[in-house]
């Protein structure tokens, strides 16, 4: 079997393995949510001001909330199998539609965050490891520790105060300039400007993790025998660091990045809240308190799928980075 067909089969197998996990997540959350008191109708009626029990019963019937739980679950799962995530009670529209937009926003924030966090984390970790026990190492280490330990929302709000209010460099919140409604290239620029602060805020935390990890990983790799060999071969320290050590040191960081994706989707709730970034985290948060079961399940489903997919991608990247790992 060639490597590519192997990878193909591997991807298929992994995706297949993901299915029961995702189903389990959906089912667990389905029952958890049903353990919670009140349902979407209560919230809708509560918000509407007042509604009669008869009206609420009608709504429940319409949403299928009057059915026994196992039947509700079966109906939901049946729909999911046909790629239909059902209907959001609260938003009165199909979950698929509702999630699609938000997914793009989340994807954007996640991607930029990962790139920034991993990129700078690797860079800083590398620098710290190369300048071990110098002031640069100390500064980087302290920086990493502090950004890791500072509560996210505080960082976010301070970012807004400094970069939006005092310096006026970036908008405070949102994803687009709602006064302008830019199109084309301007739209891209507009979104990028809005993306900067949330990305920095969210990535600071992960940046710290990657920096510390990269530093430790570099140090560990510097102690390996092959580094001695490389020195014995008369290679320059540059070559040893950038070619030999770096690639090996990246491996655990890549693994970590994969593991973090799940946390990232959840962890973005706070950043989305602070920066009014229209992502899935905030939507999940709202739909939980609105008992919008279908929507929340849809988000869990989608983000779990995302995690499975990203983990898979990371593993495949890993395979290419590390020839020792065989795809199976």
């Amino acid at each position, binding site marked *: 079997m060639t490597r590519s067909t192997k990878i193909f089969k591997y991807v298929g*197998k992994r995706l*297949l*393995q993901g299915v029961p996990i995702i189903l389990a997540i959906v089912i667990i959350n389905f029952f958890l949510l049903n353990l919670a008191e009140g349902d979407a109708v209560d919230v809708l009626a509560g918000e509407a001001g007042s509604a009669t029990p008869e009206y609420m019963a009608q709504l429940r019937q319409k949403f299928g909330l009057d059915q026994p739980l196992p039947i509700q679950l079966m109906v939901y799962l049946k729909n999911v199998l046909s790629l239909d995530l059902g209907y959001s009670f609260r938003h009165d529209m199909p979950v698929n539609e509702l999630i699609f937009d938000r997914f793009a926003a989340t994807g954007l924030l996640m991607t930029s965050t990962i790139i920034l966090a991993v990129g700078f984390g690797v860079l800083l970790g590398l620098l710290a490891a190369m300048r071990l026990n110098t002031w640069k190492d100390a500064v980087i280490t302290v920086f990493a520790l502090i950004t890791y330990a500072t509560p996210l929302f505080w960082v976010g709000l301070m970012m807004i105060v400094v970069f939006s209010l005092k310096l006026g460099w970036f908008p405070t919140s949102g994803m687009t300039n709602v006064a302008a409604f830019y199109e084309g290239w301007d739209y891209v620029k507009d979104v990028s400007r809005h993306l900067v602060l949330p990305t920095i805020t969210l990535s600071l935390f992960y940046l710290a993790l990657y920096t510390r990890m990269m530093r430790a990983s570099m140090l560990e790799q510097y102690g*390996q*025998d*092959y580094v*001695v*060999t*490389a*020195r*014995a*071969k*008369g*290679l*320059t320290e540059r*070559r040893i660091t950038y*070619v*030999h050590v770096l*690639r*090996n040191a990246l491996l655990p960081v890549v693994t970590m990045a994969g593991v973090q994706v799940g946390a990232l989707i959840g962890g973005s709730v706070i950043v989305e809240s602070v920066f009014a970034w229209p992502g899935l985290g905030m939507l999940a948060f709202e739909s939980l308190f609105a008992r919008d079961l279908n929507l929340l399940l849809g988000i869990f489903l989608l983000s779990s799928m995302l995690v499975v997919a990203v983990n898979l991608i990371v593993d495949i990247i890993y395979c290419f*980075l*590390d*020839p*020792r790992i065989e795809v*199976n």
Partner: protein
Amino acid sequence: MKQKILSIDNLSILLPAGADRQYAVQHVDLELHAGETVCVVGESGSGKSLTARAVMGLLPAPHVRVAEGSIIFGAEDISKVDYERLRELRGSEISMIFQEPMTALNPVMTIGNQIDEIFRYHVSMSAKERVKKALSLLFEVNLPDPEKIIDAYPHELSGGQRQRSMIAMALALGPKILIADEPTTALDVTTQAQILQLIRDMQKRLDTGVLFITHDFGVVADIADRVVVMQEGKIVETGTAKQVLTKPKHSYTKSLIAAIPRLKPRKARLRASEVVLRAEGVYKSFGSGGSFFGFGKPSREVKAVQNVQLELRRGETLGVVGESGSGKSTLARCVIRLIDCDQGKIELGDVDITKLNRNELRPYRKRIQMIFQDPFASLNPRIRVGDIISQGPLLQGVERHDAVNRAYKLLDTVGLDRRSFDRFPHEFSGGQRQRIGIARALSLKPDILVADEPVSALDVSIQAQILQLLDEIRTQMDLSMLFITHDLRVAAQVCDYVAVMQHGKIVEMGPTAELFVAPKDAYTKSLLAAVPGKDWHFSEINK
């Protein structure tokens, strides 16, 4: 004598504060001439490796450094040249190969790239030329199919192939000096012989001076022109190979040579008729590769043990000899039921223990015990020695008081102080730990000991002591022993009967004396032929 290329004068290497001694190496003088092989011999901790590294300027700075003395190469003192010059010398004028080629090679770079780097950083050649040169190098070190190997990653090669690649790398620019730091220790005996041959060949062709670090006098006998013996950082004896091997002057050298197991089979004792252990038609294979939710068949299968039969009689030592991967350890673990064999019978007396479940097995456990290879991994670092020894009897229902007494007696038996009882394993040396392991195995008063490479992790002098101890115990307690080893010399010394394994099968079995003198199987013959130092007749001092 040819031109002198390296001269180490009065070299001392300082260890960091807090180490067990101040100097790793003290007042070492050493010379190396073109085309000559100098072996530096010593046990672990003798400072031989650091000496070699100092020549490359590869001491683990900043803690370990040259305190005084000089290392003159050509007209320069390597211990004083600047970094850039040192880098130029490394790989081009002085090269090095290491003990463990797997870790010494970068796991994520192809062999070709790792060879290519040397050219790129030392000479200017076009990419095409470099590839051509690399291919020819791989060819020169007798690697099959260089075109394939040049694109291979280290893990795709066998141990021997990796070491050949390392040699190709080291000799790429025809260095004046090759430093070989235990280059064959991690290899099987037949591969070792081949690698030694290769080093000799290349040396002859390139007229390289080889500084060969080893602990094995057999290897010394095979390869050395001159020998330097080190003990605790100091040179205790130098001389030509012949001198040192036949007429050692220093007592340490003498004791080292005396400790070397001879490839001279022991005299067979009278074979008892009682069979204490019988294996019949044992099969064991391992699956690897994932399977969906643990269902379905594993994707690959390794047949570790195939149709093995053997018989162990009361009071005898049956050796199982083979190279790594031959299945000898798997067989040992099947016999003691650490793993379940797929098929076949293992009879302890007249009971087939493969059929017993865990509870039924428990009473039989005490009849067969095991001694392990790695004295560091075989003792739980968190448990006191006394508990390690007494927990077996306790588990088997012996009263605590009796178990403790038994443990104290066993400490006496294996030659350890009774105060050891309350200590933790890390306070002991390798040899002492192996004694603790033996005491643990004996604590249940077994009939049979399975010893899995019990001495291969030990220095040669300790090795001799442990073999001695095992022999004594065997006689004292009338034990039968299944002795697993890769080292034919050890087998020759301790076994009454030997079985040779290859690819999971026993290819030949017979009394030691017969099998070593007149091997029938081709594989056995090749194994015997590869034993280092076999042609050398060591002086029989102290014997």
